[in-house]
Every structure is written in C-alpha cells, then in structure tokens.
C-alpha cells in the first residue's frame, strides 16, 4: 500500500506496463516453441523500430489534445517517394536520404498543422481528410507502379540486417538503434527543453496557456510538423525493412501508433505522457502482434480484434486504477 500511495501515477503505470510486457512474453514462451530466441527478438525489435518513430510523433500530437490520423498515409507517401529518389540517385548519401524523408514528412505535417492551428478545424477532421488525400495522391503519383528491392541501392537493402552491436547473443540492429535514438532525443527534450514543455502546457489547459503568453497555435503547428517528420522517419525504416513499396504502404500504421501511445499511458485528453511509456507501449503492441502470427491457436482474423481489445483494456484499467488511487490517497491524507 505504501508503494501504491507514494509512487507517482506515472511510475505505477510504467510498472504495470512492464509487468504486462513480461507476462505476455512468458505466456507466449509456454505456447510457442523456440519463442525465447534471438530470432524472435530480432523479429519483434525490427518491427517495433518501424512503429516507434511514428508513435513518438503521434504522442506529441496527442499531448497537445489533438490527433494525427494521417500519419500512416504520410509514411506511405514518404516511403514511396524516397524509394523513387534512391532508385534514380543510388549515390545519394544515406544521411541525406533520411533527411529527405523527415523533411517531406514535416512538409505534409505542416499542411495538417496550418489547417488545424490557423484554420481552426478540429484535428480529427483535418487529418481524416488528409489520411485519404495523401493516400489518393500516392495512388495518382505512383501510377500503380511498385518500388522493388532490385531498384534500391545496396546499402539500403543491407540496412535491416546490419548490426550495431550485440548484447548476450541478442543483436541490436542499426534500424532499432535509430528508432531508439528518436525516442531518447524526444524524451530528453520533453523533460529538459523548455520550449518542448509547451506541448504539455497547451494540452493541459489551453486557456491558461494563452494567459501565460504561450503561442498555442505555433505549438500545435510544431507538434504536427514533428509528427510528420517522425512519420517520415518511419517511412524510411519501412522502405528499408520491406524494400517492395506499393500504394498501400503504411496502411493502418496510424492506428498501430495510436495504440502504442494510448497503451503507453499518454492521456488522450492531452497534457501528460512520457516517451518511456510510448516505448513500452510500442513494444507491448508489437510483441503481441508478432507473437499472435506465430501462435496457431488464434487465426489471423482475430489478431486485430485482440489488439483492439488490448487498447480498450489498457485505457479502462488505467482509468479505473487512477480513480481508485485518488480515493486511496484522499483516505490516506485526511
């Protein structure tokens, strides 16, 4: 009880998430043969690496009391156009390729942000529109042609299997490291960089933000630009991982990202959330997703339903638990 009443709700949430992750892994270890293997670790970590940046961007947007439904389409557009660019210019420096992806994503995000912050249109409407718009643009632009691995430069094809380092037999891929860097940099900024604290402030109380001299519009615009840029980074990782890019690239990734963010304890009402939570949320979602594909008991069609159930369970448990906690504390202090 003392732990329950003393630790901050955020800490408890992370603890619960960690336990859920552990329980999930242990459960599947008993169900799937050879589950606890470096191979499975690679499968999950590289798959989570694609989702993580887009989830980081989504988390920033959700902190400001908005939502970015277009992120999956941004990922698709960026992955496709970057594939085209690299096919045409195989000598382009890798760093420039990554920057191109993030800049293109940021541009698309800025379009969202401008409409939301200055056009005063709710973000769910704007991004629902651009979700379809960006995807349709991609269909038109691609002329139904597919980017194939054969047309990509060799360094990109090799990237997903490139190892950064190994820990105890587990390989940490370069792409995983890239995704973790995005989480780390954003996490540090959200804690220690004053302008980044505005995302929390604007989401927590928009009126008070105005009175405190915070430019809420610019803050929201920045959030959407970042969301676009991170979706672009995910687009690059998607391109590297799959190589073959069609017009449906990244379809549904916005929902996967939102799932990771919400399961990771970022309040959908804005104002709170942490990058560690998002990291753990993404890991949990991807662990379940990847494990279910290998678990014969559950058919493919039930995977989405289980994920949906997980999201609802996470939010319900969170709401009930924090209410219970508030009651406990009131009882404790008075």
């Amino acid at each position: 009880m003392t732990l329950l009443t003393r630790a901050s709700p955020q800490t408890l949430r992370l603890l619960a998430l960690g336990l859920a992750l552990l329980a999930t892994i242990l459960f599947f270890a008993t169900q799937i043969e050879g589950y606890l293997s470096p191979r499975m670790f690679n499968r999950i970590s590289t798959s989570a690496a694609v989702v993580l940046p887009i989830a980081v961007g989504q988390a920033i947007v959700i902190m400001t009391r908005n939502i970015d439904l277009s992120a999956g389409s941004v990922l698709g557009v960026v992955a496709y156009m970057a594939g085209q660019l690299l096919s045409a210019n195989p000598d382009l420096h890798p760093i420039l390729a990554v920057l191109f992806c993030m800049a293109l994503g940021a541009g698309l995000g800025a379009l969202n942000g401008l409409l939301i912050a200055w056009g005063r249109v709710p973000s769910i409407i704007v991004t629902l529109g651009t979700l379809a718009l960006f995807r349709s643009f991609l269909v038109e632009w691609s002329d139904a042609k597919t980017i194939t691995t054969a047309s990509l430069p060799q360094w990109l094809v090799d990237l997903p299997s490139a190892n950064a380092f190994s820990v105890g037999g587990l390989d940490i891929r370069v792409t995983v490291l890239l995704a973790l860097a995005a989480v780390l940099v954003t996490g540090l900024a959200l804690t220690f960089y004053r302008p980044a604290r505005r995302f929390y402030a604007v989401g927590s109380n928009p009126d008070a933000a105005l009175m405190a001299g915070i430019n809420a519009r610019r803050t929201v615009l920045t959030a959407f630009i970042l969301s676009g840029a991170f979706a672009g980074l995910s687009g690059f990782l998607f391109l590297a991982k799959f190589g073959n890019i069609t017009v449906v690239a990244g379809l549904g990734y916005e929902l996967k990202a939102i799932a990771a963010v919400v399961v990771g304890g970022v309040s959908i009402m804005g104002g709170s959330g942490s990058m560690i939570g998002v990291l753990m949320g993404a890991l949990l979602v991807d662990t379940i997703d990847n494990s279910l594909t290998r678990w014969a008991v559950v058919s493919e069609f039930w995977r989405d339903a289980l994920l949906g159930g997980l999201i609802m369970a996470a939010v319900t448990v969170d709401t009930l638990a924090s209410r219970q906690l508030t009651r406990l504390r009131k009882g404790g202090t008075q």
Partner: protein
Amino acid sequence: MTQPVLELIGLSKSFAATQALKDMSLTVLPGEVHAIVGENGAGKSTLIKIMTGVHQPDTGTIRVDGQPVTLRSTQAAQDAGIAAIYQEPMVFPDLNVAENIFISNRAKGRIMRWSEIYAEADALISPLGVKLDVRRAASGLTLAEQQTVEIARALSLKVKVLIMDEPTASLSAHEVARLLDIARALKAQGVAVIYISHRLDEIFRIADRVTVIRDGQHISTKPIAEVTEDGLVKDMVGRALESFAVKTAANPYGDTLLSVKNLTCAGVFENITFDLHKGEVLCLAGLVGARRTDVALSLFGIAPATDGTITLAGKEVRITTPQQAMDLGIAYVSEDRRKLGLAMPLSIFANISLASLKKLLKPFGLIDARAEAAMAETYRKRLAIRSPDTLIEVGKLSGGNQQKVMLAKWLETKPRVLIFDEPTRGIDVGAKAEVHGIIRQLASEGVAILVISSDLPEVLALADRVLVMREGRQAGILPIEDATQERVIALAAGQATAERPAA
C-alpha cells in the same frame, strides 16, 4: 510627484456594435493598491484584457514608467511588468507546481534545471504563508492554492503592476485575510496592485485609492479616505440602491419540510442534523473546505450519504440520484455555473427548459417549441434577465444574468426545497440585490431554502437561521438574532470559547 508606473490615456474599445470602453483614463502609482469597482458589464474585464495584452485598444495610449508601450500579447505585457491573477485561476493541472510558476518565465533559459526550479519555486511559495509541495501536480489543488501558484508566478516575473481580478470570490475568510496580507507585502515592495472586487468591505480594508467605472467610462478616482460605501455604490449603479445587503425581517415560517438526522458521508462529512421549515432560509456558513457543498450534493443525490436519515414532508426518503431528488421536489442551483450549472453554448430558452422537458412533450416525444419559448419568456420578464430575447447563448450573458437563467431552470421544476450554492459569487451589486430579493420572495411563497454562502454579510442578510460547519462537522446552529459576524467566524474557525455541541 512620483512617476506613475502605469498610465492609460483615453482608451476606447468597441466589439462589433457595443462600445466596451469610452475614453478611459487611469493612472496607477508604484506601491499603491488601486481598487477598480463597477457593475458587471461596466468594462472592467475589457480594461483588464487591454492591460494584459489580450485585447488592443482602438484608440488611446498606454504608458509604463512614462514610456509609451504597445501590448500586443500577454507575453508583451509580462515583459513590460504587468501580470494578472484571475477569479478562476489559470493553472496547468498536469504540470507540477514549480513548473506552473515558471511556465512563462523566459529569463530561465531553454534548459530545465529541475532541482534549481524546485528550489526557487519553494523560495517563492513559502513567504506566501501556504504549505505546498512544489513537486506535486497542480491537479487537485484548492482554488486558494491555485491562486497562490498564480501569485508566485507573477512574483517570479518581477512584476511592476499586478492585477487581481476578483481574487477572493471563492475564498474563505481566513484565506481572504492571507491574500490581503500578500497584497500589502507586494505594496511594501513597491509593486502597484490593481484590485478588482465586488466586495466593498475588502476594498476599504486594502485600497489606497478607488476608481469607479460605469458603462465603459471613468466616473471617479478618489483616495479611500474620501469615499463611503454608499457613495461608491451610488457611483457604480448611477442611482441609490435601497435593498443592498439590508436585513429584511425574518419570515415567520411554517411546518418542518425537510428533516436531516446524523447525515454522514464517510470520509467527507458526518452527523449533520437540521430541520428546514417551509418558508425558511437556512444558511450554511463555514470556511472553504468545511464540506458544505458536499452536504448539498448528497441531499441532491449526486454523492449519496452513507449514513443518517433524510425525512421529507414526514416520509423518510433515500436519495441516490439527482432524478430522485428532482422527483421529490428538491432543486440544487450549483456554485459552478460553467461546469455543473449551465450549458454555455445553448440558448437561454434551452437552458431554462432543460430540467422540465417532460412537461413540454407532445405526442411522439417531440418538444412543444411554442410552449418552451413562452416558458422562457415568462422567466425572462419575471427575473429581469437582461437580454433582448431568449435566443442568445447563455455563455454571452454576464454572471448575474447567467445566475438568473440557472435559477429559472430550477424554479420551473416547482421545487419544495431549493438549495443555492454561492448564489451571488462573482456577480455585481445590482444583480446581487435582485437575487436576494428573489430568494426572499420564494421563501415568502413557502419554499424551503438552503443557502450556502462564503460571503458573511450575505449570510446575515438572508438567513433566518445559520448552520455553521467546520471540517465536515456541524459546529452549531445560530438563530439570526444571535448570529453576528464574530460568532459565525468563531464557530467556523473552531475557536475554543465558541465551541458548541452539534445542535
């Protein structure tokens, strides 16, 4: 002569067709407490918003320390040394106290040094006489604590002019005293405090000079020694007002209607016992945090009591939902108009009919729009709601008129027991007198009335009996003949000599 810290010269401001300020001038000196009084709608809010950079004047000049300035944003106003604290404090519930204090402090650089921030926040908070953990999240702070956070925020900006907009509207007596102490301390440091309040007694306690504004115009600025309460009220309303806070004779009241025995809500309040008679006004007095509102909420079924009995007209009842309470003829006019009282974006008529839509039903569950409009119109006239028609959004009305709309909604349910929670909080003297008149009128029609008020003069002006609560317990019941400010405060604050067993 001292250089004025802030000068407003010939400010005018219009919104669409209404002129909010006309040729307004004001001079504020360093180290003075300058009170501004005026009825709601007199232009105080517009004036504050211009001083804090939220609005820009159409014409006129603002000078700070003799230099003309343009306040394009709240940030610009803060940079010029002008900050404000509001009736409804502006804090960020998800951020901790320390960050709330330094949120707009650009001098602190771009990197958050948390330990430094906590230490400085502590140093700003502790001289204010409030115990507050600067690391806790701001959600769940009381209004007084939130205000303290706002004051600390203003202090961290090294303000020259601090505007306090109705800072005491929801504070208890000792919290008010502490706030006035803080204002005096600021004054001693040379800060100019602009103090806006409807409570004239506070103005006489704290102000050096007082400015009256009416209809967007400057009426007078005088040293406090040269004004009287009557004179101020006369200047504010532009006419003499007879009924202001004058005790009317107690109504002779009838049979017991509501009888509450040992009402308890575990962990919140306990053993509340009283009888409420037809035609009686019983006031619940006490400090903020005495749990008076919680008693009302349990009588209205929102937070049902866990123990004790409620007897209505001789029958014991259990009230667990607001619907049950309404069916029994109990109405609750909330203190929080914004959250619990009114649907702000809806029209006046839609708000008035909201609690009695059943009466307006036609076949197929449709609403009889004509009857609804007629109902609203009746109340607009009867309660003198100042609005050309009943189609206007409630959110656009002044506080006093919103209060009347909320009251109309509940009157239409034809209640036998009417509970008023802070019926005149944040509304001006004219509207206040009207609301008091309405409450008295209802009592004389036989409605049993329970009023929760933190405004002691109001309690003494309205009540037939006063029930004083302290920290969830009943400290005593005083008949109005025995109730004086001193005795009520003594009971509410729990001074040993005034201790009485629960009646």
